[in-house]
């Protein structure tokens, strides 16, 4: 069992886009934070620079970004309220949550 020191996380989200045969470089991700946000600040801690607290609740710093930032996927997974969704900006297909 390989338990090396390389802890690169699998880029599951990127695989979703690539698997569709799409031209990844032309797609954008859209980050959405819903009303379910409880202001835990988890997303800021997980994806520095991608989220900000406004009036105590989270908003993306920039709503549309180039795909591939694993920290944004992590933020969506770790949100205690499940308030973060990342979609393909054009198709609306969800990139997260992955379950």
């Amino acid at each position, binding site marked *: *069992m*390989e*338990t090396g020191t390389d*802890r690169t*996380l*699998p880029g599951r989200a990127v695989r979703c886009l690539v698997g569709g045969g799409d031209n990844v470089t032309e797609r954008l991700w859209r980050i959405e934070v819903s009303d*379910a946000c409880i*202001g*835990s*600040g*988890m997303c*800021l*801690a*997980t994806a*520095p620079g991608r989220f900000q607290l406004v009036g*105590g609740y989270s908003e993306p710093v920039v709503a549309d970004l180039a795909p591939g930032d694993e920290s944004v996927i*992590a933020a969506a*997974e*770790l949100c*205690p*309220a*499940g308030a973060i969704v990342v979609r393909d900006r054009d198709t609306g297909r969800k990139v997260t*949550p992955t*379950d």
Partner: protein
Amino acid sequence: MTTEVTTPVPQYPFGAVVALELHPRYEELRRTEPVTRVRMPYGGEAWLITGYPELKQFLADPRFSSLKATEPDTARVTPLPLRPGNLLSMDPPEHTRIRRVVAGAFTMRRVEQLKSRIKQVVDTQLNSMEQHGPPVDAVEYLAVPVPVMMICELFGIPYAQRHRFRGFSDIFVATTAFSAEDIDKSRDELENYLAEVVEQRRGQPAEDLATALLQAFEVENRLTANEMMRTGIGILMAGHETSLSMISNVLYLLLSRPELYAQLCADPELVPTAVEEMLRLIPLRSVGSFPRVATEDVEIGGVLIHAGDTVIFQRAAADRDERIFDDPDQVDLSRRENPHLGFGHGAHHCLGAPIARMELRLVLEGLVRRFPDLRLAVPAEEVPWKPGLIARCPAELSVAW
């Protein structure tokens, strides 16, 4: 001739812990010096944060390290420093990696799925209470079994084996002291037992934490075997003691002020906001804890904290900050604006928060519905409290109806 008067750095903790009372010194400090120096029983001086904006900033700031606070010379309240190897004593990227593995078991969606199970457990316990007749110990009948059963459900411990799990966990929740050897032995046995449970998932995956852990280790190579076990036990123990204590403390507070319990019975719709108010007001931790160490100079609340300094906080003091909360010392069961920090903030925000909220709501909803004349069976001042420096909790909470 002037003499310079230097205020000596005060000794911490400030005094004995009494029931759910917050030492008045915290409030004084929050008003005058929300980031202040104290002298810890071990390891020297530390910074103590008691103000809300200061605490929130601190909790969100990645320049404070939890991992560094496991070092042997960290200023601290306990003889031994924070143990390494569990989520609370980790920093990114390890922290993020491990938390992602287990986060799936704690999503709102999963908690919703568990809701009917929690409700069943609560109803069963309330039936037991009714059957037994007053008085009963609410700690024994509610505060212990509800979280324990929920942890079993979450982890995936087979229903038929729950008594076995409870056998191990009883040592950790017992109010009488066990020797360090007993506790260590119990912990080892528990670890072996959990390894068995995880092993059972091989080839029989389920939607539970045991499967998530095994999968992460074996299939996805995201955890070492050691991390898998330590994380499992860590979650088990953390989730257990905190929920147990909070359920007991909430009941203590509401029943020691009968007008509060009556208010809730008259209007059960208030239960969710009442739970948040309890989370705001109840000082769960006996003393300020969860130390972190500054990895660079950081300014908080106008105070310069130097690299290498240890910082602790008293969350319950910050959650009574008049800069944030109107009538902060009032128990307002219908309080709407309640951005309390009871579950923390930032990367270490309580993993079990959705479950804890669910448990507290369902316990209260069940009680107010079925036991509207619930009351303490002993005077509030006679309720015994568990000794120790971790979580505040009644040792026993005798109730009648």
